[in-house]
């Protein structure tokens, strides 16, 4: 995939993810949106590392420019943290669903204002 295509795809993913994150009322959908947006950010960083006709950032593969290794190293960190925080957020949603029996943000906020219904 060429750099510009990847950049456009990354920005589209970011947009879709942030839109889902803001507009959807279900917490699971919000987390999905957050994950799509962060994958867009990851793709954006990888696309930034692209150079025309570049080889992978490994020495000894021949002449010519190599892709920028720094964004790759950044992304490696981001992917792992992404996975771990998503798992933790899902756990919080599970606990919330157990206690409040809803994943609807608006309902949770309304209950927060008017007091939790007895169960």
């Amino acid at each position, binding site marked *: 995939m060429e750099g510009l295509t990847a950049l456009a795809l990354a920005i589209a993913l970011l947009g879709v993810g942030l839109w889902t994150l803001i507009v959807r009322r279900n917490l699971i959908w919000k987390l999905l949106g957050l994950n799509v947006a962060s994958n867009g950010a990851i793709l954006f960083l990888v696309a930034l590392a692209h150079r025309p006709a570049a080889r*992978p*950032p*490994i*020495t*000894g593969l021949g002449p010519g420019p*190599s892709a920028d*290794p*720094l964004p*790759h*190293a950044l992304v*490696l*960190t981001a*992917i*792992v*943290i992404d*996975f*771990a*925080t998503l*798992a*933790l957020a*899902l*756990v*919080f949603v*599970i*606990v919330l669903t*157990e206690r409040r029996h809803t994943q609807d943000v608006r309902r949770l906020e309304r209950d927060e204002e008017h007091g939790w219904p007895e169960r």
Partner: protein
Amino acid sequence: MKPLAALTVLGLLVLLGLGASGLLPRPELPLPEHVAAAWGARNLVATIVLGVRLWDTLFEILIYAMTIVGVKLGLRPVRWEGAGPPVAETPLLRRAADLLLGPVVVFALYVATSGHLGPGGGFPAGALLGTGLLLALAKGVERLSAEVYEPTLEWVKYGAIVAILALTGVVLVLGRKGSPYLIAANLLMTVEVAIGAWVILHRFAKSRGEL
């Protein structure tokens, strides 16, 4: 609370502006190729992750371990009431898991040990090994929990974290360099990431009533 938050954000913005303006002195950065040669590695990304930005990687591992502890503690009191039926176990799935588990583990070890020379490294290898454990999950959870004792696995994980801390101490404080350190760090990271992924999957399966 609000003034404090505003002050923090403002301070961060000022720091960012200072960093971008070029007023602060910048360290002379060596070429990545030279750093890789000094470390005896060919993969520039591995050199950056394990050599130049080792502090960053260290704290990333700690964050990862903390989120796993959070998953464990958060899911402890939870057992879903309306859990669905257990995942169907087909002979095809079980046979494929039996056949693939060994090669996946061997490939993960290969990726971990050759990560400083080519594509690979500790995190991809850990993800591979974690996926291999997911395959083992398809073998049937009861059989698996009879084979793998989770508390021991977790002690192995904490041991791996302590070993990574010791290794980073040797590299950061004593300034040692070389490919043996990269290989050891990659292997330890593989263990840590794979066991973390396994604990997360195992806990989710358990809370769903699969165990």
